[in-house]
């Protein structure tokens, strides 16, 4: 098992199982949050096919930029690139440039199992062990012409195959006001902002 952030502990039943493929719907902070726990614990993280990754947000979520490799454009030979990286990095975040064939998927899954890493895919990947997506989201701190984006309350749902088949859902701060990812208590679902509200007096 690779460690994950405490906020994702329950959703992922303890951690990321080595040799597994995890899918997050579209690219976003959720993919970075998945990798953050392992990266903070010393794992190297390669990011393939995502030139638009926000490194500052990644650092805020807990990834160590000193242990990141970015391959913005892996080109048509991307499966070879991913296989090479799995040899050295325990985590590979991937957005496939094209839709992989079933045969290619099976070959890469075998590579993941052989090296004991975890492949986090942004996009579709049939046969992934775990799937995470944001079901509902709501930004707080911003109004009609005032305030600013402070934090996002998001309901993250995890489902998958086998033991993970029963969907689980949790409310998370994704991100919280300081960029970190923490559990948003259901009880605090009231709209009370957690900072003093400043109103115009003019």
């Amino acid at each position, binding site marked *: 098992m690779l460690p994950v952030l405490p906020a994702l502990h329950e959703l992922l039943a303890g951690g990321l199982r080595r040799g597994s493929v995890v899918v997050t719907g*579209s*690219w*976003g*902070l959720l993919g*970075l949050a998945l990798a953050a726990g392992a990266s903070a614990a010393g794992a*190297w993280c*390669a990011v393939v096919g995502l*030139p*638009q*990754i*926000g*490194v*500052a*947000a*990644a*650092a*805020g979520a807990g990834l*160590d*930029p*000193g*242990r*990141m*490799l*970015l*391959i*913005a*454009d*892996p*080109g048509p*030979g991307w499966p*070879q*690139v991913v296989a*090479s*990286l*799995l*040899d*050295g*990095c325990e985590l590979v975040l991937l957005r496939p440039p094209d839709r992989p064939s079933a045969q290619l998927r099976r070959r890469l899954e075998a590579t993941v199992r052989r090296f004991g890493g975890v492949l986090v895919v942004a996009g579709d990947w049939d046969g992934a062990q775990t799937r995470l997506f944001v079901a*509902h*989201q*709501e*930004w707080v701190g*911003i*109004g*009609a*012409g*005032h*305030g*600013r*984006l*402070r*934090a*996002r309350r998001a309901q993250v749902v995890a489902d998958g195959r086998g033991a993970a088949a029963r969907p689980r859902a949790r409310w998370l701060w994704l*991100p*919280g*006001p*300081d*960029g970190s990812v923490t559990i948003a208590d259901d009880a605090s679902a009231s709209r009370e902002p957690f900072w003093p509200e400043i109103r115009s007096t003019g």
Partner: protein
Amino acid sequence: MTSVSDAPCRVLVVWCPDWPDQDARAFEQVVTAVEGLCPRVEVLYPGACAVGARGPARYFGGEEALAARIADAVACHGFACRVGVADGMFAAQLAARAPRPGGVARVAVGGTGRAGRPEAPGAAVIVAPGEAPAFLAPHSVSSLGNQELADLLPRLGIRTLGDFAALSAAEAANRFGAQGALAHRLARGLDPRPLVPRPPSADLSVSTPFDPPVEQSEPVVFAAKALAERMHAGLAARGLACVRVQVQVICTDGQELTRLWRHDGLLSALAVAERVRWQLSGWQAVDSDADEGVQAGGITLLRLVPDQLVRNTGHQLGLWGDAVINDRVARAALRVQALLGHGSVVRPLLAGGRNPAEQVTLVPFGDAADPELPSGRPWPGRLPAPAPATVFPVPLPARVTDESGAAVTVSGRALVSAPPARLSAGLPAHGEPWLAITSWAGPWPVTERWWRPASTRRRAWFQLVAEDGSAWLATVQDGQWLIEASYD
């Protein structure tokens, strides 16, 4: 302490001003040009190389003639270079970098007025034998290349190398430690450390044959790393370290390709493999008719010869700072670089700056670099946390309208014409051409670098939240809306 054997030998340095960092491939052409005239060229770093001047100068009839010939040869390849000749590597490097008033070298040295001579069009600076200390004396202590001393010495009133050299060697060593003792030797025009009197009797070179011959450079680079580890183990067993390493590659047609590499500080196994890769790709660039990644005829032997051996005085790794790159990660990154090219695998460095795209500097794996914009400064007006998770390398053009469908504009006094109501961005993931805006904030005007007309920039930031819950960072610049980042 100074004896005859301690005196540095004559060194000629070729320096190309403003050479792009890490462009080792193009520099290969300069090295080849110099090598056509004198053997055993030592590459100091991409942009500078050195040769021992005594033998070639005798052959070409003097150091002036040699310098002029080298400058001509490099100019034939279309590169501008400067040449300096002096006692020792340090003085020769400074001579090469010395300013040339009017393109002709006239360097008045320490009152003697004879050390720097006017030179032919090649504009070489030649410091006469024995005049190195006088030539060095007026230079600032920052030219020693030691940041700590460059900070400390001026605060003690020691501003030039001459002042520093006036201290006794024992005092310099007492006050500034081993680094200070080395710097003091440099300031006095001596080589940084006494040379090892004679080469050790044992052959410390290591080699690996390739059978069948290898045509790709990638396996050679792999082998080079293991080979370098073997070489280092052999050196360590004798308490030695090498300052230079000679990389020899022998091809099937008997052609032998040799290059000397220097690394400031001591070479690591990875650093040696990196230089082998540069060397191979450099030859491929020169040998343009060969297919990419293929050596003519294939490589049959790789040999590493440690050169210029010194006593290993130990090398302490920093307790904090450098993230240690383990071998598996380095191997994986090197393999991908062999597939896609050197610049395709990058490591991010957090930098300063105001907008999210500026806050990251990307450095190719294996290179060392500093952030383009220094972090740790206040950067007033920078985007507050949380940072956006998606930062578009090229901002997406967008359209933002108010309720009536008219484009929203921002006046010169940072007043918004009407509340933004709808957003359209050319995003393939968002099928809806128009999204209703549920909440928004802004504009935050940012005027950057107004003191520099070429890069001045005036814009206003907005944060927009659309009906589907997505949040965007948008800017208005010259009336045009751009989506810079997404908070998803």
